[in-house]
């Protein structure tokens, strides 16, 4: 820590360079750099199989990288994973607590594994804040998806970790539970806990302070979540009116238009070249029944644009 300059910014919680994971001949994670500042909510976005889970597992020592180096919480990710594990809470994508133990037994087991003091008090507090105190003797396997997710979060928080790694924590969870979950995330972040979360959902991505977008094991872009769309430089128009399905099919065929996506009763029409896009939509703008309004490109448009570019590069 002596190398840290003596001003206010604390050293990053995660600082890794060139992380690489190879399965057979396939690079699942390729030359991955990541810097996560303390207290940040950092979102991992990307399609299935893009390497999000593998990256999280390498950071918490569950997988050994084939290349790369760096630190997590000041410890070396390669050689000191045992130390990292004591300060990291990792919530797996698939429920991985013991289904044949009760809720309380699972929490007690986790507490004992981390050698926590005041175990009973901690577990009871966790049960109460979970709202599962009345059902604490129920087998974990009998819980519904949303409750399992809350129990898993509670279990990986039990040892007051400095860093939380959450792997698609809201997959298969209903909207209300998702909202509550994100409220918890922000509270934790306010208390100085760093959170690295992977997700598929764009509405969750915008809640993150930083975003990294991953595809095919490569990081395509990262930065503060508000900057991403701007940096990509897409132009987007919103169009409302009747027969949007027919219109969408027609627009997709038109050169200059990269993507047409339906949002409720409107279409978002985007392209990387502002002039080409405006030329392409001009014939349709004259139609009276259609209402065209320019809008800011969202994250979703930005990421679909990135995906298309990468696909072209890989083809």
């Amino acid at each position: 820590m002596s190398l840290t300059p003596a001003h206010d910014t604390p050293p990053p919680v995660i600082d890794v360079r060139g992380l690489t994971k190879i399965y057979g001949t396939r690079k699942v994670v390729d030359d991955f750099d990541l810097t996560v500042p303390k207290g940040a909510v950092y979102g991992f976005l990307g399609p299935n199989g893009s390497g999000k889970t593998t990256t999280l597992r390498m950071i918490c020592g569950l997988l050994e990288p084939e290349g790369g180096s760096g630190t997590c919480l000041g410890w070396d990710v390669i050689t000191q994973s045992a130390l990292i594990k004591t300060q990291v809470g990792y919530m797996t994508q698939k429920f991985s607590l013991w289904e044949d133990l009760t809720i309380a037994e699972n929490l007690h087991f986790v507490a004992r594994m981390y050698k926590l003091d005041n175990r009973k008090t901690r577990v009871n507090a966790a049960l109460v804040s979970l709202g599962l105190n009345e059902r604490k003797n129920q087998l974990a396997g009998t819980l519904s998806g949303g409750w399992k997710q809350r129990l898993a979060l509670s279990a990986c928080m039990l040892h007051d970790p400095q860093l939380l790694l959450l792997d698609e924590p809201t997959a298969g969870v209903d909207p209300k539970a998702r909202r509550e979950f994100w409220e918890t995330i922000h509270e934790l972040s306010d208390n100085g806990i760093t959170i690295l979360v992977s997700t598929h959902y764009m509405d969750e991505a915008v809640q993150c302070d930083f975003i990294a977008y991953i595809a095919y094991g490569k990081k395509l872009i990262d930065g503060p979540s508000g900057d991403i769309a701007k940096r990509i430089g897409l132009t987007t128009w919103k169009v409302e009116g009747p027969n949007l399905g027919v219109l969408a099919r027609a627009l997709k065929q038109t050169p200059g238009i990269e993507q047409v996506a339906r949002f409720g009763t409107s279409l978002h029409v985007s392209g990387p070249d502002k002039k080409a896009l405006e030329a392409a939509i001009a014939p349709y703008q004259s139609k009276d029944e259609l209402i065209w309004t320019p809008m800011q490109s969202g994250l979703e448009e930005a990421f679909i644009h990135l995906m298309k570019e990468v696909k072209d590069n890989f083809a």
Partner: protein
Amino acid sequence: MSTGFSFARIGAILIKEFIQMRRDRMTFAMMIGIPVMQLILFSYAINSDPRHLPSAIIDRDHSAFSRAIVTAFANSTYVDFTIAPSTPEEAEEAMASGKINFIFEIPEHFGRDIARGTRPQLLIIADATDPSAASGAITAASTIINTGLAREMSGALSGLAAGPPPVDMVFQRRYNPAGITQYNIIPGLLGIILTMTMTLMTAVALTREVERGTMENLLAMPARPLEVMIGKVLPYVLVGYIQIIVVLNAGRILFDIPFEGSKLLFFWISTLYILVNLLIGFLFSTVARTQMQAMQMMVFLLLPQILLSGFMFPFRGMPHWAQILGEALPATHYMRLVRGIMLKGATRFDLIADIWPLLAMIAAISALALVRYRRTLD
């Protein structure tokens, strides 16, 4: 879409099963490989008419007659005289520790008494803990003696040859005078039951965590491999104790099996044996990818433990290479120890030769399991 009985659907399931069978290479290899290995191994190793049983000879006579008898027994291939102790005590010790199956004792003036026609005694003590091991040699003994002495009984002594047998054979069946098979089978069964259940319990210890997806959680927590191993193994030691108590009491109540030796010693060696088996199971668990594979490995080890350990067939009756294999099996040593303590009242000094292999196995298997233990999900 017909909902009646359909051969097409049977075909669909058949094809799916074949595809899955072919994908699981290890299971498939074991299904083909194990029977072949076992057939070759056991068909050569097993011998229900044991020969070359190690024996002790105490010859106090050293006459032509005594030498003729020793030679005749050796030539019969039923016994091999491996030691020639000077005192009966020394011979008894060797028998208590399981080194020899027979003691032949030829008294002083043996040859002289034959010549006089006073029919001297030839004492043959058999270790009858395994009645079947002793029976072959005992049945053949009088023929062997008569053939062996025939040459010496020529000339001046030819008159005696026509009379009653020149030697008075005295048999003693040591440890199990009535030759009750259960005396031998029940201590052996204890070894087999323990190896079967104990290995199985831990064989699925880690593969179950992997298959249920809980391994990821376990590995994400700061636990050392040694901690996991000890924590997974110890609970089953208690299960092993319960099994021992059940088997021993059943043996005592149903078959009146004696218990000659120290119960404390028995407890300690049983603990060692239980640990060896639990650790073997844990080792399988670190090697196997699925619970199915772990169980196959367990069965793979179980068969030699039944056939080569001296449980089903006399250990000393097997060919030399099979005995070496047998020595590498924990059940072999445990059976000798249990039979020694229960039937022979053997002490730890008699049994040291079978105690240290169990200790060595515990050390070696733990070390191997810890090396094999996957600390990551790779």
